[in-house]
């Protein structure tokens, strides 16, 4: 994920059309449709049709064999009374805290410190090396990292041994096996996975900020915190929006780490909608019900993305007003 968003952050999205193109006769442009043809056909086959299919299946009961039986909105009604469904969405909020809120705040702080303090008062190489350490988990297959973490957190794993070694053996625990600790521990792993992405995006964003702004503020006697709040935060707000949006979408969709760490357990303490849907599809063979879960998740993602984009557009308009 991470990287492309970096690119997006720095690209002006969907540029306005210069008036010149309107003067050209339509016939000339029509030939360009031909170039869209392969992409459009693939898009309809791989995304459009399956999406409609899932929507249809969510209104049926089906085990994947034979013919789906139409049941109307039954699946959705059942969802409303399904504790696992509600638990999975509560856990999504925990995932948003672990994958959006904490990494964005911590990332802002780390990026500012790395860029402003370490990058300038020490060698830039030092800052680059530290940034690489924070970013490393982002380039790895998240499932593989999840398997390593799963072993570390096992009752006989490295984390408990570490507690023993530092004299905190009393705290030994089955971290992922206890419903009380599984979610906080998974959240901690997700922070570890996610933190590098905001750090890298924000550091790239800071390079864009005019250094003279900082120098002027320093001459005026502003301390580091003042400068952080008055210059850094407002200057990199576009990137903050992009990071918050992409991380929120990623948190809503999170699957691999849950699969590798806990499979949603124990007792659904770490279940999330996408794992719940996967499990319902392929383990319980309730295709209609799984489709309903997926459809609800899809709608939530679209709404969240819409709200973000609307907020961003509004804040840009406000900026121009000044």
């Amino acid at each position, binding site marked *: 994920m991470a990287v*492309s968003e970096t690119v997006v952050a720095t690209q002006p999205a969907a540029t306005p059309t210069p008036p010149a193109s309107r003067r050209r006769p339509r016939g000339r442009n029509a030939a360009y449709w031909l170039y869209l043809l392969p992409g459009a056909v693939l898009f309809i086959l791989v995304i459009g049709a399956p999406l409609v299919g899932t929507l249809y299946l969510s209104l049926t009961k089906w085990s994947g064999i034979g013919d789906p039986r139409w049941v109307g909105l039954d699946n959705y009604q059942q969802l409303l009374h399904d504790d696992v469904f509600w638990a999975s969405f509560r856990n999504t909020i925990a995932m948003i805290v672990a994958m959006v809120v904490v990494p964005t705040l911590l990332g802002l702080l780390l990026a500012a410190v790395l860029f402003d303090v370490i990058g300038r008062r020490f060698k830039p190489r030092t800052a680059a090396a530290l940034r690489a350490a924070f970013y490393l988990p982002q380039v790895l297959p998240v499932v593989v990292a999840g398997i390593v973490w799963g072993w570390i957190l096992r009752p006989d794993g490295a984390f408990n041994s570490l507690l023993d070694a530092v004299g905190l053996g009393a705290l030994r625990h089955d971290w992922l096996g206890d419903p009380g600790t599984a979610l906080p521990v998974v959240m901690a792993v997700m922070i570890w996975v996610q933190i590098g992405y905001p750090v890298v995006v924000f550091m790239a964003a800071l390079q864009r900020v005019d250094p003279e702004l900082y120098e002027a503020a320093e001459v005026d006697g502003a301390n580091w915190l003042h400068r952080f709040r008055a210059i850094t935060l407002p200057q990199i707000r576009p990137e903050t929006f992009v990071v918050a949006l992409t991380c929120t979408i990623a948190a809503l969709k999170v699957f691999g780490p849950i699969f590798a760490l806990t499979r949603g357990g124990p007792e659904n303490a770490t279940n999330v909608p996408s794992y719940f849907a996967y499990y319902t599809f392929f383990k319980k063979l309730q295709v209609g019900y799984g489709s309903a879960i997926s459809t609800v998740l899809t709608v939530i993602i679209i709404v969240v993305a819409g709200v973000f984009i609307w907020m961003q557009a509004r804040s840009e308009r406000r900026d121009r007003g000044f």
Partner: protein
Amino acid sequence: MAVIITEAPAPARRPVRDRHHRGVSRWVVLTLVTLGALVMLVPFAFMLLNAFKSPGDYSSSGPLSWPTEFYTKGLRTYWTEVNFPLKLWNSALIAGSVAVLGVAVSLLNAYALGIGRVRGRLWIVGLFLLANMLPQEALIYPLYYVAKEIGLYNTQLSVIIIFTVIQSAFGTYLLASVMGTFPRSLLEAAALDGAGKWTVLWRVVFPNLRPTLAVLLIFFFIWTWNEFLIPLVMLIDNQTQTIPVALASLQGDRLMDAPTTNAGALISLVPAILFFLIFQRTLARGITAGAEK
């Protein structure tokens, strides 16, 4: 992927009095951030420490001890049991094909949208962007069912086709906005020389966008390499599975004692770390090029 700061942001301009102010506190900050970075690396240290330990050594001395011998049997067991070279080939075949095809489809789409400016293009671009955000669960069952019906189930081709489309949804969005700023004069000059649309695409647009396309190619490759859900559902046997799916499906298996798990994770991570090291400069260039617009 990590942007490398190649140029120091002019440390020479620092006002002199600053040095007095921050003599100590900067070291405190450096220490704290370095500690944070070390915490990030601890899981890798644990993994390395245990990947070359014998099972007996592990069970008697635990996960924190230094290995008594350089034990590579865990690594070799994993390598041969899962037929790692084949998994590597599957991952490379899938990620490589998706990268090339995804960029090609993105380029064609974006040419129509960004340069051809076909009607309704904003809606179409929005649709592509939305497609990129969809949860894969919303597509997976119909894809799985149809793949079974037409005999593409458990083939690398099914995964290649699906990810070509998913990745190109993002690529189209990105390239369409890049092409929207493409210098019109270049296009018009080519048209005056009598170049058709296809020639313009290959001789004018493509060479100019090559750096952006290279970055996109690498992103697509790495993202596809790391994908999990769709390969997990579509690829069910040893012949077709990718590296992450192979490791995950052995989780909890009798074969996978702690040293073997760590050894398996280690070799599964090596390719990703290599891409990171090889490509980070290219990616940094791409990101900086974007930022200068």
